[in-house]
């Protein structure tokens, strides 16, 4: 047992740090938790990484991934978090990509993987439906075979950032007589296909981050089916486990704590910096300690994955604790800014940072970010669902 990095790993860190320093767009530094950026802003870093061959850090080399070890990926996320980088969105690289290269046809791989890697194609996720939430198996959207096409009808919801999407992956019921989790298929859909309508859902923080997606007689070529018909549930579960494994967000939360310390050094309480206030500084300490526990739990999980075990139910722990920490972090940040948590930046004219001149810049989105982050314990399988998973898979109850 040891925590040492090898000389090669240290050299790797130097390399990626230099690359980030030289290539990361300056104007996008420290914007990592903002949700209302333009398509171009979201994709800028992804495209740079795509050219470098670093956009898919967890993919095998043969599909265009980096083939990095888990330690390299750990270093990579740490170095990106230093500038709070806007990482490639998960829908392509972390979600549909691994499904395609694991279960897809050669044609699908050839057609879709390059666009995912380069950042030219934006993907949307079509899992959830109104009234379904964490219970994916109850879905109602149907895909009916009609010659060389599936005809899809139904409604998806929480399709994150689908307003920008070129393609989407949708879970559809292809065998209406099957039991709840069977008879589902995993289908790739060009979002420009007639019959698709994306309607914005406004969230409580004022952002347009998610959408409802209505599908009316949407005709999709059968070759867009991934894997076998009626076996989509297997791919869906595979995807969800992959989604959870990145969700701990340790490096980003570390950066968040640094930022919180900066804020608490600027804010004063009775004339002294808030950071020197025993109550507040100990809350930061507690958060940092909890984050350390999560970090080493993730490192242990990565080590056991590297030893050949795929992402297992342990990833549920990372999801639960990771989101609890992210939420607590935004809660403390809002607390730190005091009275200036109240002004509603998005409610004013213009959306740039502090162009409304109320309070210090770091206070501008403190409340909105706190509100927004409540989603993290709900999405990706709510934290209650994660606890159910651990109950079954680990405790065996």
């Amino acid at each position: 047992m040891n925590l040492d990095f090898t000389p090669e790993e240290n050299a790797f860190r130097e390399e990626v740090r230099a690359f980030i320093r030289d290539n990361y767009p300056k104007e996008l530094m420290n914007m990592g938790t903002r949700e209302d950026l333009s398509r171009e802003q979201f994709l800028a870093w992804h495209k740079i990484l795509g050219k470098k061959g670093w956009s898919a850090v967890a993919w095998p080399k043969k599909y265009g991934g980096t083939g990095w070890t888990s330690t390299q990926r750990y270093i990579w996320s740490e170095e990106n978090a230093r500038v709070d980088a806007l990482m490639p969105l998960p829908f392509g690289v972390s979600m549909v990509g691994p499904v395609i290269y694991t279960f897809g046809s050669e044609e699908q791989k050839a057609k879709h993987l390059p666009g995912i890697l380069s950042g030219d194609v934006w993907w949307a996720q079509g899992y959830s439906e109104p009234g379904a939430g964490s219970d994916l198996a109850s879905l109602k959207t149907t895909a009916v075979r009609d010659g060389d096409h599936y005809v899809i009808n139904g409604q998806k919801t929480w399709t994150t950032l689908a307003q920008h999407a070129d393609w989407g992956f949708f879970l559809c019921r292809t065998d209406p007589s099957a039991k709840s989790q069977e008879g589902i298929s995993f289908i790739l859909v060009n979002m420009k296909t007639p019959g698709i309508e994306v309607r914005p859902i406004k969230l409580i923080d004022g952002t347009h981050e998610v959408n409802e997606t209505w599908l009316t007689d949407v005709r999709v070529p059968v070759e867009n089916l991934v894997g076998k018909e009626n076996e989509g549930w297997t791919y869906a579960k595979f995807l969800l486990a992959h989604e959870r494994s990145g969700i701990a967000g340790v490096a980003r939360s570390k950066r968040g704590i640094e930022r919180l310390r900066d804020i608490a050094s600027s804010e004063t309480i009775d004339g002294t910096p808030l950071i020197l206030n025993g109550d507040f500084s100990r809350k930061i300490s507690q958060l940092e300690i909890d984050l350390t526990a999560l970090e080493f739990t993730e490192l242990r999980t990565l080590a056991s994955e590297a030893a050949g075990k795929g992402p297992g139910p342990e990833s549920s722990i990372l999801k639960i604790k990771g989101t609890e920490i992210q939420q607590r972090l935004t809660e403390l940040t809002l607390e730190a800014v005091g009275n200036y948590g109240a002004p509603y930046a998005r409610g004013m004219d213009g959306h740039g940072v502090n162009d409304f001149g109320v309070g210090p810049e770091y206070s501008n989105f403190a409340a909105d970010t706190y509100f927004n982050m409540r989603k993290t314990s709900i999405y990706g399988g709510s934290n209650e669902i994660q606890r159910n998973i651990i109950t079954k898979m680990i405790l065996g109850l």
Partner: protein
Amino acid sequence: MDFNFTEEQTMIRDSLARLIKDQYDFDTRRKVVASKEGWRPKMWAQFAELGLLAAPFSEEDGGLGGGPIDAMVVMEEFGKGLVVEPFLQSVVVGGGFLKRGTEGQKAEHLAPMIAGERVFAFAYAEPKGRYNLADLETTAKKDGAGWKISGHKAVVVGAPWASHLIVTARTAGGRRDTKGIGVFIVAKDAKGVTTRDYPTVDGRRASEVHFDNVSVGADAAIGDAANGLPLIERVTDEAIAALCAEACGAMKVAQTMTVEYSRQRKQFGTPIGKFQVLQHKMVDMFMEAEQSVSMTYMATLKLDEDDVTRKKAASAAKVRIGQAGRFVGQNAIQIHGGMGMTDELAIGHYFKRLTIIDSEFGNVDHHLKRYTDLSAADMAVAAE
């Protein structure tokens, strides 16, 4: 001991509840909040007509003979309806200062406030003062018989709707000294007053208010301009009690809405209200709301006791309610799931209001420390 409401209080509550139900449904509120004005002066006139603005004042002062309990009743209903109009700012705080003013001040300000013609906002917080009422950079300098006020007040809730401001300012001593603080009435249209108006995340309006050598007369000072902090603390504690009542109203609705939602929303073929984990969370939400009501009664009933008792009661209530509001709000969203995150459902707006309530007039940490410091002082006295 008696925990019953008077007939008048019950009447106020019922008629206000009816008015809100009829004219303040959630969709209407959303429209009002999104409108240019952000509130409805006509609604305010109706509140005045109903006697709400007169309720907590003695008959000599032109009121209906009520007191803090009446304000509590109103604020709880405001909390239930997420009402944005500035009862707290104008009636509880503005009225709270004015009723302790001179007869002249009452005649000039209190009577039109009660009539709904003048609206007050409380300009006390400053960009660097956090929750310390005495941490003031705003100054009021003697200028003949009157005063000249300069400074920057932060997040003055209700200021865009106000005709007048109650302003705290340093008349002597150094920043954070407890002595040397005065309270002044300033017309918002006075020369040298500039405001930057904006919405708040919980659907209200506030302003940054700048005072640049604003001249006011001698009659603008309420109470002792050399030692106004005790009065400020008293009125602020009254505001805290009223704010706690608002939080109770919001929590009750958030809690019952969540129970209702859990009854209807199905997952895995079962209403989620059948899942024991969610049931117990909702029980905890219920208990938090109940205990908040208890604390609000307690703090309200102790407003007229000695200073230390009153302060401890107000701080204890604010601590408990800050914690309860966070628990109820966060769990209401969690149990609502994705729907709870959407702007179109009311629940998220209750969550947002409860969040901001914690930061108004001092958050949990601030009041836990205040309570602790007061307890230590208490013990020191007892030990003597």
